[in-house]
């Protein structure tokens, strides 16, 4: 049976639009708040939620998500609490949920148990930021077995050989890192994104979602013309940090820019 993630991209393909993927650090500012924030994102037109597990040493993240991780950890967020948050989101919505985490908390929890518990909590897929495909085999088995999608990243530095490997290991969609760098908003979209999309399309039929540095409606609109999904992370997390009340209109501006025309 297709996962909610696979069903989503089927649907957006039919609707001839790109999916809006929103990232949240689970537990930021507190574990109690996250389900409500997720509901706001869904109301504002987010099609898929990446639920970030906070980590003590988020080496791939810029200052905005680093601060969110610190707030979440200070508020007592743990992986079991993130799964509980997922359960609450799932109780209210059929939105696809992608668990987004660094490897160590997942490894410490145990992959067999995580696969089972994540699936039971209503999570549809897992993305492990610092798990290279070379190291992935032992961890993918239990996730796939539980019926979870495994999403991997490609980057502008990925060679053709690596694009092929990552595509083979991915299910659901392939996540394109639009530029070299950590997560965070950028003034300009990276020039390399178009060519990365072309190179990856030549290798796989999986949907492609692009992220890293996309924050404004104009940027989202431009990326939506090229990719099947647009990931917005730091801009959402910054909005939660500075003005939670303005989150719905901020996200609505993104989703409507992608549906216009």
């Amino acid at each position, binding site marked *: 049976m297709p996962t909610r993630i696979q069903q989503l991209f089927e649907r957006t393909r039919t609707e001839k639009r790109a999916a809006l993927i929103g990232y949240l650090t689970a537990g930021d500012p507190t574990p109690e708040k996250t389900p409500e924030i997720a509901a706001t994102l869904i109301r504002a037109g987010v099609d898929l939620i990446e639920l970030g597990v906070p980590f003590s040493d988020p*080496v791939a993240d810029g200052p905005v998500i680093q601060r969110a991780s610190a707030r979440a950890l200070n508020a007592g967020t743990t*992986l079991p609490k993130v799964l509980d948050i997922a359960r609450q989101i799932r109780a209210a919505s059929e939105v696809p949920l992608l668990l987004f985490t660094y490897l160590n908390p997942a490894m410490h*929890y145990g992959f067999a148990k995580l696969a089972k518990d994540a699936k039971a909590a209503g999570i549809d897929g897992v993305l492990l930021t610092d798990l290279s495909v*070379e190291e992935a085999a032992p961890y993918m088995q239990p996730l796939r077995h539980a019926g979870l999608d495994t999403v991997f990243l490609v980057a502008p*530095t990925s060679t053709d050989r690596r694009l092929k490997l990552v595509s083979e290991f991915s299910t659901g969609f392939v996540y394109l890192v639009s530029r070299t760098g950590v997560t965070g908003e950028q003034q300009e979209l990276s020039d390399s994104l178009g060519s990365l999309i072309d190179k990856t399309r030549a290798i796989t039929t999986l949907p492609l979602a692009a992220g890293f540095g996309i924050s404004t409606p104009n940027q989202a609109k431009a990326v939506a013309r090229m990719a099947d999904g647009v990931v917005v992370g730091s801009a959402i997390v910054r909005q939660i940090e500075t003005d939670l009340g303005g989150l719905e209109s901020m996200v609505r501006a993104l989703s409507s820019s992608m549906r216009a025309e």
Partner: protein
Amino acid sequence: MSVSAVQPDSTGHFGPYGGRFVPEVLMAPLEELELAYRAASADPAFQAELDDLLHHYAGRPTPLYYCKRLTEQLGGAKIYLKREDLLHTGAHKINNSLGQALLARRMGKKRIIAETGAGQHGVATAAACALFGIECVVYMGEEDMRRQRPNVFRMRLMGAKVVPVLNGSRTLKDAISEAMRDWVTNVHTTHYLLGSALGAHPYPMMVRDFHRCIGIEARADILKAEGRLPDTVIACVGGGSNAIGIFHAFLEDDVQLIGVEAGGRSLTLGEHAARFEGGSPGVLHGAHSYMLQNDDGQAAITHSISAGLDYVLIGPEHALLHDQHRAEYTHCNDVDALVAAQRLARTEGIIPALESAHAVAEALRRAPQEPGKVFVVNLSGRGDKDTDIYRENLPELDAH
């Protein structure tokens, strides 16, 4: 007792440890670095240039010094010191910094970044970059900048930019994270000159190889001095570069290898950096190895009086040597390191770095019970950088 298989394997694993756990953006650059390193190490011209620098610039070979007075006082094992503290810039770190800087130049990189804890790796890297005319940026935790202030100034005097890191505990772990973020962003132009036998493959192998000269020299010199191999080799272990550098030449010998971790204030999680005391396998900064972590898989806060040992994960080859029982790992607390440093200073006129004082303390503890034995202690660095900490802790010597 021998370790037969060549480590690491072709994918960078030391048994179950090591590997390459990094965001995809760094994977191709690590593949490129590995190829460049393998080509350089097979190139006699590269090795000749490095050897020449190690000799004329850094001061290799370093002496193996017999501590006659200390040995007599302890009345047990004979204690020899491998004097890496006499190297240019003050510690073994220059071996690796020169090697990787040469490699970076060969790869056409215009910019070098590094992390540093105690500042010795930062100073060595600043020197190598000055020597080759390469831009140098060093990330250092703010707490470490405070406690190792002389080294901050030395780096700046040699033209390096020192960037304070304000995250987490503001120590080595946070400096490595910040250096990795820089590398992720500037990977096309920049070489990350990692300073310990840590991180993703090929770093643990490459850093070890650049430090293997320590053990090779020590082994030859002890054979000359004693006509036999030592019974025991002792080194401190933060990430583990000086220890793996001296251990490697003795791996196939019937020689006891002892790594000394930082016991800090106590063995309560958060108060030490002894990864084999309460740590468990995990993944951080690119490698799978023993690390200190809480029940949720978050990296723990660490403490050591010595900034260079104050780190949460041990180099992956040490994890394998530990599991194979080929090396033993113990720990020394802050106070015993200070006492050992003072004793070495008074008895032999050698002020060790606080890191190396941990290894000296283990030798002091064991020597009286082991007459007839021969110890080689890796004195990985000198204590000039620690003058402020010694002053704070020995106020009776600082009176007017």
